[in-house]
């Protein structure tokens, strides 16, 4: 069975319980951060932060209204159906498990950082000290013993749910239609096993908006276009060669 995490951003209260639970379960160290003009903290993913909440402030439309409304967005691995990170990994250190999680075996990782370049959601992070890459595992170790991922387990607002993908997707579609929300992850990068319901377009919430095609179709399309340019280029060079050769012959004839 393929499992899926469903994140409903419209129910999220930004308590960061999921962020803390992720650190606790995976024994990830706390990081010293600098004060910035945002509540988002830490500012980005790292080898020690596999999940963080993005805080997006939104001022009220009326100038008299000084209240701020909040939008929250979870940033973590989307566990793609066809993961680009795994497709480029030269050591097969990244695997898509049959249950859905995309996991990295740090013992196998060679530290080439190719996965960090390939991920359309910009998720994997390189650890300079250990020389390997880390990211969210969807708590594959917990799923294996029939327990929900730590982030889902800790969510007090009911924004996170976990279950088989078909059920999660069906729930997501119903909820999105009801609140006029946007589904994120159903089609992005060919589809992911983490689905978001967003109140606004992903880019406005600090999330990447990758193409809808999968890495496989992207690569095939790129190779086709490269080949087409090559064929046109060769044809142009041959034509140019013939023209130059004819001009040289004509000039020689004139000289004679």
């Amino acid at each position, binding site marked *: 069975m393929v499992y899926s995490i469903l994140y409903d951003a419209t129910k999220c209260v930004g308590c960061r319980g999921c962020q803390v639970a992720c650190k606790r379960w995976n024994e990830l160290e706390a990081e010293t951060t600098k004060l910035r003009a945002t509540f988002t903290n830490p500012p980005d993913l790292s080898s020690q932060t596999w999940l963080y909440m993005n805080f997006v402030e939104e001022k009220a439309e009326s100038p008299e209204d000084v209240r701020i409304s909040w939008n929250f967005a979870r940033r973590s691995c989307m566990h793609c159906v066809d993961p*680009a990170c795994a497709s*480029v990994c*030269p050591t097969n250190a990244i695997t898509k498990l049959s249950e859905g999680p995309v996991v990295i075996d740090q013992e*196998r990782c*060679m530290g080439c950082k*190719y996965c960090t*370049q390939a991920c359309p959601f910009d998720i994997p992070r390189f650890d300079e000290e250990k020389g390997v890459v880390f990211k969210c595992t969807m708590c594959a170790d917990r799923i294996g013993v029939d327990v929900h991922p730590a982030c889902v387990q800790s969510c007090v607002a009911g924004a996170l749910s976990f279950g088989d993908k078909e059920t999660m997707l069906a729930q997501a579609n119903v909820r999105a239609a009801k609140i006029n929300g946007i589904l994120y992850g159903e089609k992005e990068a060919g589809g992911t096993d983490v689905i978001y319901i967003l109140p606004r377009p992903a880019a406005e919430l*600090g999330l*990447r908006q990758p193409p809808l095609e999968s890495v496989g179709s992207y690569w095939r399309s790129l190779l086709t276009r490269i080949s087409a340019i090559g064929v046109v280029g060769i044809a142009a060079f041959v034509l140019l060669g013939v023209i130059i050769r004819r001009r040289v012959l004509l000039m020689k004839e004139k000289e004679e």
Partner: protein
Amino acid sequence: MVYAVEWSWLTSTALFFGGLAGGSYLWAFGAGLSNERKYANFSKVGYSIAFPAVLVYLIFLVLELGTPTNFIKIRNLTSMIFVGASIVSLFFIFSLLTLIGREPTILPQISFNQKTQRILEGIGSIFAFGIIMYTALLLGASFGRPFWGSPFLPYLFLVSGLLTGWAVISLVLLSREDWRKPVPDFLDLFVLLITLLFVLSVLDLATVVAPESIAALITGNLNVFFIVGVLIVGIFIPFILAYYSMSKKEVPYFISGITFILVLIGGFLLRYVIVVGGQVPPVI
């Protein structure tokens, strides 16, 4: 904006030397094919550059990885890193064999007859082409970096690799005072081609998917490298100097030397702005 640049100057330098190795080998092979006697010296220098250049390429790759033994972990036969490692290894072997064949003083015990040498050079030239194209495909396979997904990129790297390969061969010949007029007639064509390819790549990327990378190159933190380094120093000035050189019967050495050095600087910075520029995240 917080973002990590995972591949920077180590990768850019490796890609530059990969292009230079392949480019100089292809020139040496092409020159030998067109007129073995006339270009014997040119070919010999080309082959002598290709092998050390690919060695430097490998050194920078290992430096990027940190631990040389990490290469043993490679298992995925479809990853571009495996494909590239195979091409580079084969090119390494063939460029070494070619060099030994051309320079009998290196290993006098080993010699090849002319036919074998030709076959070795022919096979080596396929891998030379492969190493240049691979450096662009390595970037192109990165689904998360739209700036590298231009189908023009491999051809841009090919033209740039040929240009830098030619420049370094000419620079060596110039230092030996072997070449009085080192700027051949086709340079203007090459510079035009590289400019055209670059503009096409940039237009393709700017209009479709990677406005943030284009912005970094034109108005952002990479604009000095791109506008001054690549466009002015690497393309515009060599283009003017090449035109000047072509109008003269004999060119002052320092002008030719400057032309070649500027082409090399431009070739390196081109890799640098593409590698680093591609990692600029979208503004969200």
